[in-house]
């Protein structure tokens, strides 16, 4: 018997729990020639701000042991262009879309959300944990009051769509921030954003990245991400999108067992451009082999309660 892969992510029905991690899948269309965007649960877009942003000076990326550092700096064409040029095409391709919103003020988070909600996206992710921008990003994620305000603005502008707040694990007490955004009406969490990191070019005696510091992603951060999902699920029992170093079919259930309802493939997309769809396909076989009838049985099961 085919196992049931469908999950309910705070009211958002996903055909399977595999989504893409914001920033690693562009606006989805870059991957449309390579894979069926309708084969995965949802496409999570690169973070979008109200106005276009150019991003940080290069070099923007460098490889690290089993991972990479990036400092893109939220380069994006602005919400108007994304709503106009990207969303209709994603819909035509049969993709569910979670828009990632960012801003320099709480009002900007709200306004970007309002425009995405009006354009018919399926969910909102709130990026208050980008480590690569001077204003916005972590400036919100590190201060409970600011995190709460940004979340409240998004909640009020989202027109009833599920709202997932993306948190990091540095800069503040993760559970304290999680509590603040839950009080402000977050439907769930995306865990985790990249970890702050630095690489040094010994020959030039300078940091490798143009913006000096960057965000660490990839398999190197998987244990940290599992820990974060475990902690937040245990404390709040709200839906979680697990993110961090997922590169194989076996990585996905690890996050789900810790409490994730969905898992996002991020840096793994760079290794294999069809990885998200391949994990979604492979999950069915893997669960059947384990005699799991419904993937929902696994959500949080490693906590051993219930």
């Amino acid at each position, binding site marked *: 018997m085919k196992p049931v892969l469908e999950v309910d992510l705070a009211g958002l029905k996903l055909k399977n729990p595999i989504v893409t991690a914001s*920033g*690693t*899948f*562009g*606006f989805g269309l*870059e*991957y449309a*020639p*390579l894979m069926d965007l309708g084969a995965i649960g949802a496409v999570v877009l*690169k973070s979008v701000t109200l106005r276009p942003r*150019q*991003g940080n*000076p*290069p*070099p*923007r*990326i*460098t*490889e690290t*042991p*089993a*991972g*990479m550092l*990036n400092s*893109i700096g939220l*380069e994006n064409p602005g919400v108007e262009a994304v709503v106009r040029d990207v969303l209709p095409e994603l819909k035509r391709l049969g993709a569910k879309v979670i828009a990632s919103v960012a801003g320099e003020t709480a009002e900007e988070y709200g306004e970007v959300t309002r425009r995405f909600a009006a354009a018919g996206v399926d969910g909102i992710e709130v990026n208050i944990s980008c480590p690569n921008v001077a204003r916005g990003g972590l400036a919100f994620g590190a201060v409970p009051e600011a995190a709460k305000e940004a979340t409240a603005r998004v909640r009020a502008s989202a027109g009833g769509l599920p709202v997932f707040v993306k948190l990091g694990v540095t800069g503040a007490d993760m559970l304290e921030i999680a509590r603040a955004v839950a009080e402000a009406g977050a439907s769930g969490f995306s865990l985790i954003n990249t970890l702050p990191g630095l690489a040094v070019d010994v020959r030039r005696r300078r940091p490798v990245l143009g913006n000096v510091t960057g965000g660490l992603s*990839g*398999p190197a951060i998987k244990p940290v991400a599992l820990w974060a999902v475990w902690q937040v699920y245990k404390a709040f029992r709200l839906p979680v999108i697990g993110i961090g170093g997922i*590169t194989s079919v076996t990585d996905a259930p690890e996050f789900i067992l810790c409490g994730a309802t969905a898992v996002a493939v991020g*840096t793994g*997309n*760079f*290794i*294999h*451009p*069809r990885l998200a769809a391949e994990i979604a396909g492979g999950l069915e076989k893997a669960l059947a082999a384990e005699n799991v009838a419904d993937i929902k049985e696994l959500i949080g099961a490693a906590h051993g309660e219930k």
Partner: protein
Amino acid sequence: MIYEVEIVTQRKVASGCYRLEIYAPEVAQAAQPGQFLMVRTSISLDPLLRRPFSISTVDRERGLVKILYRVVGRGTALLAGRKLGRRLNIFGPLGKGFTVPHSGRFLVVAGGLGMAPLYFLVQRLKALGNEVAVFYGAQNRYKLLLLEELVAMRVELSTATDNGSSGFKGTVVELLRTKGIPPADVVYAAGPPPMLKALAGLLREAEIRRAEFSLEERMACGTGACRGCAVRVLAPEGPVYKRVCADGPVFKAEEVVWE
């Protein structure tokens, strides 16, 4: 676009430089000069990312694709150790290559391994019956690659080496300055950033506008999604970042902002 291919030959062509030949008929058919491949150099998660390599030539009849590379780090060292007959995971051909006009006179300026994408271009230009002048510079004569093949194609070849072991003693841009820039409808170039910057300056002085440069930058996705390989380019609205992988790797020389 994504293929598991077989390594047909792998040969050391200079100190630390290798020529890898793979059997990839779809890529051989589709590839255009200036395009590149993203190659997984290991099957493990460390090193993690694919490495970009210019396609240095294709053999459409035999379905072969060649790349030319230098060992600069862990990824390329692993690639150099890959045995014949082993499978290699490749993604491509990617990017926007050189424009190839049907007729005219052309100047190709290469620095070191920059010859990799330009060799494919020279082949194509010569196959169309064009006159091609090649100015090629490297550290020393051992690092001038594909010289015999270039001579066999009957290009007008001028070399420059830092130590004078072949041709002019000095950089290829100094050679162009000394010898004079041959008349050309389009100038094509690839090589290290300081060379390209100096060449862009020389072309500007000479008021030569039609020039196409192939750029390099660290890449992660190869599809334009991650915005990791940013290069500053002049647009009508001012300087903007473009993506080397998807908007390039070939750019108009006059639009590149040299840092």
